[in-house]
């Protein structure tokens, strides 16, 4: 408790609190911009533009999450939507081509279905409780208890982390397993190329000027890499006190290596993070998480009951949360890096496959 009071900047107490009207105005404007973006996505034909606008859409919705007080969610949405999903979609476009070949099929029937469904949903909202009212039923079952007691019961200021990692630890375990399963699925569909340490140097492909790397970007990326990794560690271990935690930190780690791959190429990046190690780490994170549950069972508690991990229940909760967040971070980071490598391999192979018809030296 003392820790979080130190967090509040001292000079700010005199700042006016509760500018609710302005918050509302920001909210309304952002939502309108979101609608405009979506209509542009519906109308546009260039897939590349659609994916770029999807990036904007994600950034905007993350900003809306900030305006709706959900900072942890905003963090994750920015990381996952604007970051990873957009990058993966761009990589897919390299394989599939950038233009839609045909216009939409006749829009009338879909439009009819959509209008009917939308009208029914709007009719449904008329019975919904008013937005932002503290008396709404959604705020009065377990939520009350989480807000009132989690700071003393779990002992960490960020209630989202306590609920995520402790009260609803089962959910999060399931989710980590889903992420791991996605990796298994992606790797069974696409393969990751092994690094070519020797062939790359004497590669005598005709090097057009456009294929040269960007030296400025390489330098900037190199400056930023250590910074990003330190920031990832900060987010990982500061997640108890501020927005952050295992997912966000894992994605930031992945972003560091994605940046490296983009500027230096897949071979260098694969030499830095070997594929077998990534696979082991992805499984290792899940094992750390599940293992914490098993350890707490062996110590006489329930599965994922961290109270028994130390003599004092609160410090037991602390240990448990730090360990499972570490597991989550490791799994998410290694899964996302591997998935990205698989996508880039596919994108490059596709390009090479088209090209190598008239080139004598094969890639491997």
């Amino acid at each position, binding site marked *: 408790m003392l820790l979080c009071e130190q*967090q509040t*900047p001292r000079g*700010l107490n005199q700042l*006016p*609190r509760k*500018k609710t009207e*302005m*918050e509302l*105005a920001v909210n309304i*404007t952002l939502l309108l*911009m979101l609608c*405009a973006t979506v209509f*542009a996505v519906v109308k546009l034909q*260039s897939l*590349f*533009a659609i994916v*770029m*606008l999807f990036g*904007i859409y994600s*950034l*905007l919705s*993350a*900003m809306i999450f*900030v*305006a709706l007080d959900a*900072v942890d969610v905003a*963090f994750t949405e*920015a*990381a996952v939507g*604007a*970051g990873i999903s*957009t990058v993966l979609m*761009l990589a897919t*476009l*390299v394989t599939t*081509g*950038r233009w839609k070949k045909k216009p939409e099929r006749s829009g009338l029937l879909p439009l009819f279905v959509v209008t009917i469904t939308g009208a029914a949903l709007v009719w449904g909202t008329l019975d919904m409780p008013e937005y932002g009212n503290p008396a709404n039923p959604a705020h009065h079952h377990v939520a009350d208890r989480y807000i009132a007691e989690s700071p003393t019961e779990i002992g960490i200021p960020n209630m989202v982390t306590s609920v995520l990692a402790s009260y609803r630890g089962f959910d999060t375990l399931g989710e980590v397993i889903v992420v791991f399963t996605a990796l298994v699925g992606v790797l069974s569909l696409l393969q990751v190329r092994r690094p070519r340490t020797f062939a790359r140097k004497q590669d005598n492909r005709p090097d057009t000027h*456009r*294929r040269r790397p960007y030296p400025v*970007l390489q330098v900037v990326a190199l400056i*930023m890499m250590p910074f*990003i990794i330190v*920031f990832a560690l*900060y*987010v990982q271990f*500061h997640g108890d006190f*501020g*927005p*952050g935690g295992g997912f*966000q930190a894992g994605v*930031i780690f992945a*972003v560091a290596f*994605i*940046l490296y791959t*983009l500027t230096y190429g897949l071979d260098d990046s694969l030499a830095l993070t070997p594929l077998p190690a990534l696979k082991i780490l992805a499984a290792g994170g899940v094992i750390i998480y599940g293992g914490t549950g098993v350890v707490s069972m062996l110590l006489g508690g329930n599965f994922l009951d961290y109270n028994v991990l130390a003599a004092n229940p609160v410090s037991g909760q602390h240990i448990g949360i730090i360990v499972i967040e570490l597991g989550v971070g490791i799994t998410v980071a290694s899964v996302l890096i591997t998935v990205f490598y698989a996508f880039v391999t596919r994108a*490059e192979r*596709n*390009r090479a496959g*088209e*090209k190598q018809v008239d080139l004598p030296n094969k890639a491997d």
Partner: protein
Amino acid sequence: MFATAAAALLVIMCLALVRAFRGPKIYDRILAVNMFGTKTVLLIAVYGFMTGRPEFLDLGIFYALINFVGVIAALKFIERLDEYDEQEER
């Protein structure tokens, strides 16, 4: 004061959004996305001050980062895409 700044940033974001829609070239869109991202970072900072709770600047740092990586990814992949498209046309 912060409210005015937030309003100005929202206006800037709207204008960048218009450029992202109009486009004509893909590079215009990427430029607009980049500008949009920068202004989102500033909006997060200003919004934190506006609501009196500016501790969430970690988010801003991260947005700046993700924005950069997004732009670089778009550029790198469009490079390959151009090559690919030329191949198809030939």
